């Protein structure tokens, strides 16, 4: 067990972690943060995406001990002060269906727009290509992001 200290959704957390625990396990099972989902446990589906120091990371592929000193954001943090304009756009467009991919998809889109507020359609596709969705056919996701950036 090793003590780790990191910022999670703007709150400093310190926690004892086993060296073999993934960040996804620690977030969900030890810290009660449930928006990152497990959909493959091998980095293929992106449902477990979180932002570490602003960069999207598959939390099932990273050991929790590696994030000591980092700043981690999940959808819970993004939603803290009410829905972000991007979340609102997703809601207004009825983008998601089952919603299981939504946390990861929204974090990938959030990362993209921070780096590139006016992405092309291809930029958007590239940014969310690591987030698998079986319901929407992706087009509503892409259209909502495009529409949002046009309004901006």
């Amino acid at each position, binding site marked *: 067990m090793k003590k780790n200290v990191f910022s999670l959704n703007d709150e400093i957390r310190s926690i004892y972690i086993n060296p073999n625990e993934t960040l996804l396990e620690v977030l969900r099972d030890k810290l009660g943060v*449930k928006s990152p989902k497990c*959909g*493959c446990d091998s980095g293929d589906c992106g449902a477990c995406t979180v932002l570490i120091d602003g960069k999207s990371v598959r939390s099932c592929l990273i050991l929790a001990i590696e994030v000591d000193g980092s700043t981690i954001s999940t959808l819970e943090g993004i*939603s803290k002060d009410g*829905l972000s304009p991007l979340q609102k756009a997703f809601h207004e467009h*009825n983008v998601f269906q089952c919603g299981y991919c*939504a946390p990861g998809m929204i974090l990938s889109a959030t990362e993209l727009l921070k780096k590139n507020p006016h992405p092309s359609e291809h930029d958007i596709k590239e940014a969310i290509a690591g987030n698998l969705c079986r319901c*929407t056919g992706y087009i509503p996701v892409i259209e909502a992001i495009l529409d949002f950036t046009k309004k901006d």
Partner: protein
Amino acid sequence: MQDYKYIGHSAERVDGIEKVSGAALYTDDLEFGPDLLYAEIVEGPHAHAMLNSIDTSEAEKVPDVLAVVTGKDFPFNFGLYMKDRYIFAQDRVRFYGEQIAAVVARTPIAAQKAAKLVKVNYTPLPKILDPLTAIQEGADLIHPELKNYDRVPWFFPTPDTNIAHHRKIRKGDVDKGFAEADYVLEDTYEVPRYSHCAIEYHAAVAKFDHSGRLTVWASSQSPHTQRNLFANALAPLGIRHNDVRVIVPHVGGGFGSKAGVTMEIIAAAIAMKVQGHPVKVMWNREREFYNTYQRLGVIAKLKIGVKKDGSITALKHDLYWDAGAYVEYAANVVNAVGLSAIGPYRVENASIDSYCIYTNLPPGGPYRGFGYSEFLFGLESHMDRIAQHLGIDPVEIRRRNAIKEGELTAYGAPMNPNGLLQAIDRVAEEVRWHEKLTSNDPNIAIGKGFSLFWKAPAMPPNASSSCFLKFNEDASINLLVSGMDLGQGFLTVMAQIAAEVLSIPTSKIRTENPDTDRNPYEWQTVASHVTWGCGNAVHKAAIDAREQIFDLIERTKHLPRETLYLEDEMVKCTTDPGFELLLKDFVIYGIQMEDGTFKGGPIIGRGSFMPEFTSTISDPETSQGGHPNVHYTVGAAAAIVEIDKQTGKVRIKKIVEAVDCGKALNPSLVKGQIVGGIMQGISTVLYEEMKFDHRGKMLNPNFTDYKIPTALDVPDEIIPIIIEVPQPDGPFGARGMGEHTMIPVAPMIANAIDNALGLRITSMPITAEKVCLALLKKEKKK
């Protein structure tokens, strides 16, 4: 056209904010406290073997292990339409990875460690990995007990064979029809197995508490059906229906995989052995592939005869389904196709034989489209080939044969009102069917393909729905139904129906996935029937509530009820413009009279619906005489593709799809189903492929090796078209459309590839590799 305030509008999803905010909880997100136990499954490493003995003694010694359970603990069979399934294997295993035992422990690690110590002794048996081998004379029997299994009366197994069900259609005179034909085309089409790939795994937590109550939290499409099957399967242990409670939080996709009962019964059963503790059974991505339902594979032999003008004179369709090791649900896929494999056409002489065949591959089961995607791949390919031979336009041949209202389906019942011709014309126009497209790049070939589709819900004739509608003090509503929102937007549409009848904003109606203790009965959320069936129940419940309101106003305000109406959360009166009474002033508290007493009480609407006109009773030799399907939803679609001749890679430029949903209660959600369904269809035709080795073991049970599309694979353009020819018995004229949208995709892509390259591919998937090799072969011949 009637003006509606709430239906017909693209209302925001009632679960939308939960889903974009991360608040939505799924089964694995629920907390059960430190007493939660974990189960690990022991799987059989043979596709077919006798199970001689199981030694659990070493596993039981592992610290933190509470119980090891095996088939001996649950010597009962279960199943939805036919009881051919077991909670854990009994005397034999029938597919690679079948569950043999489960270890229940305090931690997942202890359970996994102990599961490896369970020793099982097998005698391998000859395995059968394809349906044609399984029906050969003298083939080994996978279910020697087949003839003794309980089943619904409309299933017809062939005793002492591997044919679990055989649905026959005999309509008109097929021999005469072929004799009258100017041209007959006969060929075989093959569609392999597919996986649903919902991103959320199957998950279940069960607790059998010390009072004897069994609660199951599950990711399910079918909470009441699960309760029913749990109660029936566990009845030998003294369980009754009202002892079982199934609670379903948000569900991360289903597509049929979470219909009926699969792994959930394992959680329910093992909870009985660790009374007092909640126990969790989680599938992982691998098991999602090999130990839940898979879409059935099929070998379809199709023969169609036509006159010179393209009109169909006879159709013979023989379908050999690879239904897998257990067919308790799959047999109904086979049945549904047996009834409908003429496609959306007027066919006076038809012969269909649909065979449900046991193999030693994982159990087949329901998958979006319920067999229609599979048989229409061949049928719609065939229609193009016939058109080509006769020199008739592919759209025109479909127009000429399209089934119209009142014409007879394969089983002899009249076709419902439908907008098939409208759909054909709208799609042809939108895709500019007659415009010839050419590429400037000699390496790129461009082609167009067309396909029709149809599908009926496949349900028992007494599949029913019900609804409770409760007013709250502020005239907001809790709408209790047991249909499931799997993402399709069902709950939003139910709220819109109630909103329309009661003139209350959709946003003031709360409706959530069910708890079988609180919410009234629903058969299952499958078959694309809930908008129609449960929508009817909600409509009735809202009218019931409205009539109670009018009763009360008539009784207390002495206004004639025929003058009363609801508008903007108030009761109003056509003859007294000054009369306005806010619903919130009386729907709970009642109306105060001059003497100080109150009349009324909480308004609670109640609605139930059963399609009372359906029947499965018919002549088993011909299937004539019954009315097994409630109605068909129809549509048309077209695709434009570009193919790279060097790599065989198909790029989809444009897809247009029109679906007749009767009435689009929420157009945004209808379009969401069209786009999502098309993408799932594209995935099956271009990308997905299950690989099994000689042992019957699936080789690619993960998203690295079993590819589903990403955002980079979407077509350049998808144009959804909504057709609205009302369904007379649907809520506001609506009928289901969720599954249908993926059905035309595979055949229209196959047709577009043929149009572009003159290459007819008769087996799915049509991967780049397959196109490329076929092209090379064609070049060599030249």
